[in-house]
């Protein structure tokens, strides 16, 4: 069960990366980052079968950080939306060449 879980984790992480790279909607990019975090969590849980309970405790911390990140990130998206009236990342080019 460990190796299939690691494969699933790798697949989910790759799909998440693809989503971050190809989508323009900032909220969906953000959702794909959550997907990547989840893939890493799955790898941690799989490795906890190998190395003990610490993997599961780390997942607990990753989830907390994901929650904090979601709150702050969505607040940033809201304030960007107030300014630009859109969440399409192509329109945010102040710090971009």
């Amino acid at each position, binding site marked *: *069960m*460990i190796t299939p879980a690691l494969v699933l984790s790798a697949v989910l992480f790759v799909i998440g990366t693809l989503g971050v790279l190809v989508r323009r909607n900032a909220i969906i990019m953000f959702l794909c980052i959550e997907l990547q975090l989840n893939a890493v969590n799955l790898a941690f849980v799989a*490795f906890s079968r190998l190395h003990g309970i610490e993997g*599961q405790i780390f997942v607990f911390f990753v989830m907390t950080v994901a929650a*904090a990140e*979601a709150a702050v990130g969505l607040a940033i998206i809201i304030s960007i939306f107030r300014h630009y009236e859109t969440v399409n990342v192509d329109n945010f080019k102040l710090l971009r060449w």
Partner: protein
Amino acid sequence: MVDILFYVFAAVAIGGALGVVMAKSPVGSLLFMVTTLASVAGTYVLLEAHFLAAIQIIVYAGAIMVLFLFVIMLLNLGHDYHRDLKGGAYAVVSFAIVGAMAGMLQRQLRGSGITDAVASGGRAIDAAIAEHGAIGAIAEPLYTTYVVAFEITGILLLVAIVGALVLAKRNVA
């Protein structure tokens, strides 16, 4: 039986993940994401991480996804149905990067030599669950060995709350 269940969960998770990337509407993406999170919670159960499976459903699929949905509806993005995939050279480069990453992960997994036969940690976890229960097995090290990290997590959440309030407040200046 467990193997079949795992592959069902894995298929649903991968399908949901593809749906997140492909769906036109942000709300559709979000619902696919909830599907993926629920199936990943199912694989957690099969990997004997029952507490994390419950937390995954309650906190992730429940609270965090509802927060996303709330923001989508607040910004009125629910009927944003046009495709927003990046095209052209950018998409080609993206797929190349992702393909390289998949290849690297596949090589790592093939060379790792991990099998269920060497899973000594699993036996330790099963013993801890038998002794303390599914929550106690996590809580005991969390509140003893890792108590400092746990407290710092509390501070992190406080900072995140304050940060979110300051950022989302109107008329910051």
